[in-house]
């Protein structure tokens, strides 16, 4: 039995169904990230776990106990809000201890707890300040301190890093990960940033329109997306999703991609997955991540299935750590990821290697993965 179980959860506002039957499980000490575009229901789902929104159907269990009818304060949870939600009229110490004060914890005990948390988060020197006198990163720490001090069963984070600047965001991301590793708490974390999702999570739930599109480990989500939406949403730059057809040449299958003003290219599929032959002559979507499309020298050496094709390079983007090259296949811009020092010029025809072991195929009609 998992530590956090969300079972057939539905949420309706009037006639509008916001959450359409969510099933998610998380083991004790796990880090679940709910990710999706805005309006997908991820924050609503978090609020139902917190008890700030009532659910219409289903059940939420923590440690075997159904909590969906309990008041937020009785659920043994702590929440970090997007705006930090620090009480502006109280000092940092007052903010951290407010919850304990409400539960009638004696003053001496409160002070000890404040000191302990302040030490962990290194905010001891800020305790007597008001939130308005703190920087963004410091406010973020205080908000986390307010959650940590309660020592709850479950931590809820609602886009906690979205108000920080880019550099601070990376620092705080690492800090949250370190905090999770050292304290071993169970966390549910909402974000729209797929990098945060990949780096922090032990489990990811990708959501769209009130439904979980895919639920799995970061590696599963990244390497084996179940549909076009997940494939497109996770990863930066996004996966190349190229309209293609399947053809037979001899007894082997090959993927045919249209090129602009030149004959189509045909990528032979050795050990083609079994289901693919059914799609012969039909349109499919061929998915390949930018790192699986690279210069032949940079291609993975032990990959079993590599096909090379000559491609017209339209744009080259040196990003420092990598160089991205944009070409056009099947009427769409396709991004290839090359080594930083790759010698490549825009406007030329350059051979690039497709790592077909990493390729995935989707049915354009259903948008689902073929295999």
């Amino acid at each position, binding site marked *: 039995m998992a530590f956090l179980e969300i079972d057939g959860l539905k949420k309706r506002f009037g006639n509008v169904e916001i959450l359409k039957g969510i099933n998610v499980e998380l083991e004790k000490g796990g880090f679940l990230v709910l990710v999706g575009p805005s309006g997908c229901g991820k924050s609503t789902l978090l609020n139902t776990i917190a008890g*700030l929104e009532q659910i219409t159907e289903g059940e939420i269990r923590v440690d075997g106990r159904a909590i969906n009818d309990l008041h*937020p304060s009785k659920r043994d949870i702590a929440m970090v809000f997007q705006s930090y939600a620090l009480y*502006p009229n109280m000092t940092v110490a007052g903010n951290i201890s407010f919850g304990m004060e409400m539960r009638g914890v004696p003053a001496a005990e409160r002070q000890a707890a404040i000191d302990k948390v302040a030490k962990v988060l290194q905010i001891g020197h800020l305790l007597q300040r008001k939130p308005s006198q703190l920087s963004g990163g410091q406010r973020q720490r205080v908000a986390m301190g307010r959650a940590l001090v309660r020592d709850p069963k479950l931590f809820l984070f609602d886009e906690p890093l979205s108000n920080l600047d880019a550099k601070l965001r990376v620092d705080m991301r690492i800090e949250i990960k370190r905090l999770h590793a050292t304290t071993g708490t169970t966390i549910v974390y909402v974000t729209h940033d797929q990098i945060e999702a990949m780096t922090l999570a032990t489990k990811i739930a990708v959501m769209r329109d009130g439904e979980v599109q895919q639920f799995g480990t970061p590696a599963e989500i990244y390497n084996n997306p179940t549909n076009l939406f997940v494939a497109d949403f996770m990863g930066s730059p996004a996966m190349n999703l190229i309209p293609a057809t399947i053809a037979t040449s001899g007894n082997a299958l090959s993927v045919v991609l249209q090129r602009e003003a030149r004959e189509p290219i045909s990528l032979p599929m050795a050990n083609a997955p079994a289901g693919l032959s059914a799609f012969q002559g039909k349109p499919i979507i061929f998915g390949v991540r930018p790192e699986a499309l690279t210069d032949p020298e940079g291609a993975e050496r032990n990959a079993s299935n590599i096909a090379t094709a000559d491609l017209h390079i339209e744009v080259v983007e040196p990003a420092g750590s990598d160089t991205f090259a944009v070409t056009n296949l099947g009427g769409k811009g396709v991004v290839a990821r090359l080594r930083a020092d790759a010698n490549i010029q825009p406007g030329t025809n350059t051979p690039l290697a497709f790592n077909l072991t990493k390729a995935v195929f989707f049915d354009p009609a259903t948008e689902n993965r073929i295999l």
Partner: protein
Amino acid sequence: MSAVTAPVRRASGGVNMKLVNRIVIYGLLALFALFYLMPLFVMLVTSFKTMDEIQNGNMLALPQSPTLEPWFKAWGETCVGLTCAGIKGYFWNSIKMVVPAVLISTMMGALNGYVLTKWRFRGHTLVFGLMLFACFIPFQSVLLPMATILGSLGRFGVSLQNSVGTSFGLGNPTVNLVFVHVVYGLGFTTLFFRNYYEAFPTELVKAAQVDGASFFQIFRRIMLPNSMPIFVVTVIYQFTNIWNDFLFASAYAGTGDAMPMTVALNNVVNTSTGVVEYNVNMAAAMIAALPTLIVYVVAGRYFVRGLMAGAVKG
């Protein structure tokens, strides 16, 4: 904007035009300021003059031998109707009526605003709309119905007095006035607080809920301490309105010992016996106006700040 871009073209004529504009603007402002300050000036100088000086001198002239006598007389000796003990009793009547009325209506407005923004219920817009409607009711139209209600409350107070031994203040004119002003102030105070709390971050309320604070704990510990600007605005607004009210005061406490300041002042000025003591009347009027003046001076800067708050946020 045009002041920045225009001078390039007509640099020669610009300076003169600017000067003329300035003169016209400041001249007009000075004229209107004079116009508005004149009555106050006349009141003030008259209140420090002796009767001889008033009868023989110029209305605008400064007092030849300034005296505080009219002020003392207005405060302690002048006749209000048939009793001649000054206006001091009525001044305290007003204070006793205004302070509870302001505090109760402000607190209830804050509570209403809190519920209407953070604890929304089905039909909250309708309730707010109806409360807003209270701001537009002409008070003359409610004089008679309210008199009937106050009469019933008074009779209920009498029967309580007979059965329980105390009327809980029902039927007391001061209590009646507090009741009336609370009821008719609620529309405004609710409007002020609702609009202020509308922009108040809801995440704070959610955080407090997770922290285990109750409905009233959130109100007292989170909402109220962060409402200072709108609190000051509401108090000034309510204080001025209730203190200056003459209609309700004369209708429901127009005679007897509970008469508020505004009615008493009217009776002082309208006394038909003997000579009209303009200096005493003016001093009495100044005393009547003093509390609202003090409230404005002390809290005025919050008033302006409060009206602006929320318009341009952060």
